[in-house]
């Protein structure tokens, strides 16, 4: 048996390699640099790495390759767009992660222990979070451009493992945070198992793990359809878990609530882009010819997800849980883009992912600002009268909520319009009607928060809004400006996306 050296196209892989290299240097910084310098060095290193990677992605945007890593990675227009979106969102979130007070001083210490106390006294900061973020980003970059099931699985784990850890790093309410991390990890492990199970069936069906090979079998139609169905169903479960679609959503409210808010922001926005990116690729290329088998199922899940997310969000009293259920509803809207299975659907989904991701990071960034003496306050009852005390912060938050609700002149409206019109065009009228109705339901709880902030008089134990640091300010301002710009004049971005939104196979 001879060993053939793999041929790697380093140019195509460079955005990921840059991020991985940055992560490794970050680990070295942790090991060798003094405590005092770490935060600033890590921040510069992380942002620099991500920017460099972003530049590199833009430089290779025209290249298309099916064989970048021996057929395991495919780079094309959508791949470029999704990677760029992930990187931009990550950069915005890193400023939020860098800011704060949010992380525990010593992750290894038992909550409430002497060690922990001592560590807080010393003013320690967990700077491990930076390399962890970079590892997660590298996984996310790989996820939507994987082109065989094994690479897809590796990418899935690579993006998930750092996130499991990061979810447990909260400074306050650490038990809740650790519980969230454990829950996320266990359910994530289950979904990985489902995914692998499905992958095995797909291999059984086609005798191949590469997307191209499976697609050929689907097109040829010679295999055992039962295997195909089981394979599609279980791979879908794994992916639907990551995007938080009903009935695989159970983890997301707890994790959103328990994780440090900055991590929640990053996770909610960037993971969604990566996971939907991979879903779009699989359904648009691999399973496209087996549309009959998954469209009804996915349509059902989309409708349930939208309605469930919107209805349950009404009952939430915690702003992070409310945003979690709102993100479930948004996952339903995004599934409409997957179901559309046309070019308009692909462009619309990518636009929506980016617009929603930016608004999500912005909204969570505002959440980190609302505090009392014991830290962030996420109980909505204590947000009353915020509009009076801090009109600017409250107005910006209200604007993000209006964007989630899809009010015209925000990015959310353009996203909703384009995704629904794509779904309608493909004949999924039921999904569109369910989407419109659940938008109306969703409007109710977004508006309720606005009422709380602006039209309700505040309690005595009023919360204060801390003056945002420069870093958080960058996050909020960037998110706000992008959300406004995409609402008022989205044409350049839509044209840009349209230019690139074609999968190569």
């Amino acid at each position: 048996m001879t060993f053939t050296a793999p041929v790697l196209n380093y140019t195509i892989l460079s955005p990921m390699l840059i991020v991985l290299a940055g992560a490794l240097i970050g680990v070295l910084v942790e090991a060798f640099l003094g405590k005092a310098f770490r935060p600033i060095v890590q921040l510069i290193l992380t942002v620099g790495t991500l920017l460099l990677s972003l530049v590199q992605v833009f430089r290779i945007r025209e290249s298309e390759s099916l064989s970048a890593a021996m057929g395991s990675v495919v780079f094309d227009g959508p791949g470029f767009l999704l990677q760029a979106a992930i990187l931009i969102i990550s950069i915005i979130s890193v400023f939020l992660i860098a800011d704060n007070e949010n992380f525990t001083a010593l992750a290894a210490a038992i909550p409430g222990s002497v060690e922990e106390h001592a560590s807080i006294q010393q003013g320690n900061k967990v700077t491990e979070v930076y390399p962890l973020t970079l590892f997660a980003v590298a996984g996310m970059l790989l996820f939507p451009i994987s082109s065989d099931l094994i690479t897809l699985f590796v990418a899935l784990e690579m993006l998930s493992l750092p996130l499991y850890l990061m979810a447990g790093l909260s400074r306050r309410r650490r038990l809740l945070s650790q519980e969230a991390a454990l829950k996320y990890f266990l359910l994530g492990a289950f979904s990985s198992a489902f995914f692998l199970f499905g992958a095995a069936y797909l291999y059984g069906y086609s005798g191949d793990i590469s997307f191209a090979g499976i697609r050929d079998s689907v097109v040829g139609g010679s295999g055992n359809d039962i295997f195909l169905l089981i394979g599609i169903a279980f791979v879908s479960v794994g992916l639907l878990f990551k995007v938080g679609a009903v009935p695989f959503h159970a983890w997301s409210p707890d994790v959103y609530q328990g994780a440090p808010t900055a991590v929640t922001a990053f996770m909610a926005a960037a993971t969604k882009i990566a996971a939907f990116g991979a879903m779009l690729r699989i359904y648009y290329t691999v399973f496209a010819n087996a549309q009959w088998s998954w469209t009804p199922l996915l349509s059902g899940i989309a409708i349930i997800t939208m309605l469930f997310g919107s209805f349950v969000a009404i009952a939430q009293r915690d702003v992070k849980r409310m945003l979690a259920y709102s993100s479930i509803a948004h996952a339903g809207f995004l599934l409409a883009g997957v179901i559309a299975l046309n070019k308009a659907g692909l462009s619309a989904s990518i636009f929506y992912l980016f617009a929603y991701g930016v608004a999500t990071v912005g909204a969570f960034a505002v959440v980190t600002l609302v505090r009392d003496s014991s830290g962030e306050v996420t109980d909505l009852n204590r947000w009353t009268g915020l509009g009076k005390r801090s009109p600017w912060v409250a107005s910006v938050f209200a604007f993000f909520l209006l964007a989630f609700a899809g009010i015209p002149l925000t990015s959310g409206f353009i996203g909703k319009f384009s995704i629904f019109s794509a779904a309608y065009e493909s004949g999924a009228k039921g999904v569109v009607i369910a989407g419109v109705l659940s938008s109306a339901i969703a409007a109710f709880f977004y508006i309720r928060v606005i009422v709380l902030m602006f039209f309700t008089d505040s309690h005595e134990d009023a919360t204060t809004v801390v003056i945002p640091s420069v870093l958080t300010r960058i996050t909020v301002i960037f998110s706000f400006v992008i959300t406004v710009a995409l609402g008022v004049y989205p044409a350049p971005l839509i044209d840009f996306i349209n230019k690139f939104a074609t999968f190569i196979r």
Partner: protein
Amino acid sequence: MNLSLTLLMALPLLGAAVLAALPKANALLAKQIALGSTFLVALVTIAMAVGFERDNINLQYVESHQWIPSFGINYAVGLDGISLVLILMTTLLAPIVVLAGWNESQNGRWSTKTFYILILVLEMMAIGVFAATDVFLFYVFFEAMLVPVYFLIGGYGTGERSAAAVKFLLYSLFGGLLMLASIIGLYVISGTQGGHTFDTQALSQLQMSSTTQNLLFLGFFIAFAIKAPLWPFHTWLPDAADCATPGTSVLLLGVLDKVGTFGMIRYCLTLFPEATKTFTPTIIVLSVISIIYGAFLAIGQKDIKRLIAFTSISHFGFITMGIFAMTSQGHSGATLYMFNHGFSTAALFLVAGWMISRRGSSIISDFGGLQRVTPVMAWAFFFAGMSSLALPGLSSFVSEFLVLVGTYTRYPVAAIIATFGIVLAALYILIPVQRALHGPITAGNENLSDLTLRERVAIAPVVVIIIFLGFYPSPLLKVINPAATHVISQMGFSDPAPTQLGGK
């Protein structure tokens, strides 16, 4: 400088920007700037109306720029007779509202300047919604204008203001989202017939199956019926009108609700002529119910603001009936009615607002004998009431008469039942007039002050317009008629010849 709709929309926005730059403390300057901007906008509109070619049925002051080309969305605006009249009404009402409600912003949650920024933004969007000739642009204005109104009611109103604001917003959003589904439907269908577009003209040429047309029609119609509001979609209006400040109520009932009836003409009728014919009988019935129901509930109201709100439901019934009667008189009458209703409601609400702020109560039985204490205010209220019940010689009479005549030729039964609405109108106006203005002076009313000079100046143009158009409506009708006839003939209707009873 060339007059254009874009300029007209930019002016209030400019005013709002100047206000935003002002320091909070200077409330008086904020009011003056708001008054100046709205006044300037009104002048520009009048100049545009003068330059409008009345006999030209094509859209005028047309502008079109690409906005989101990949979806075929344009920033496209233009005027026909109907939209011109409504924009004229909006921009004339705005300075009157600012002047009349000079102190309205005092009890608000936020500063005076925020109040006027919201008013100016609302004015800009109202102009846009009437001027848009691109359905997408229309929708953007239609939905976005909810936001300033929401904050105007919730932030500056009285009583259960936040609940009323939320109710208003949710009702409107629900309707708006149904309309969005219909707009998406139109967009997709246009894509299969010569390319994606939102141009109203192009969309009216689409071929659709009757089922599709009916469904899309309903999406639009329900949104407009909630906005207008037509029975049974009206329940948000009394609460909103009750809690909003008088000036906001004028803009809400006078301008915002007209978007509903305007939308019926511009979109329901022209885009879905077949579906319109299918649903016309149902809509006529709903209109008649609105007329009678609104009138009966108005009679039963103890609160003066709610009373005015219910009279408006009755009046909107007349407007909708005129629109769907599908005769040129009915249509002209309905459009003229929209204009006149704006001013007669303004008169009622503003005078009622002054009465309420002086007395500190909005319950009709708390007033009494105002005729002797505050003669000018009493006369103003009496006049506003007469205008609302369509006394001959005042502007509403002309439009109500046209609507009834136009309806009678096609739906005589509906017209006859609707005529009872006029009788009921006399009741719901004369009862509060009698209770509030006449009789002995109720305790607590002895020292009420009469209208100030500012208030007199504010109400004077309303009175002049109502009387002038009552005697001489033809300047407006000449603008409206060609557009109305055009809509009717596009629908394939011709006016039925009047039949003579027993003339066989």
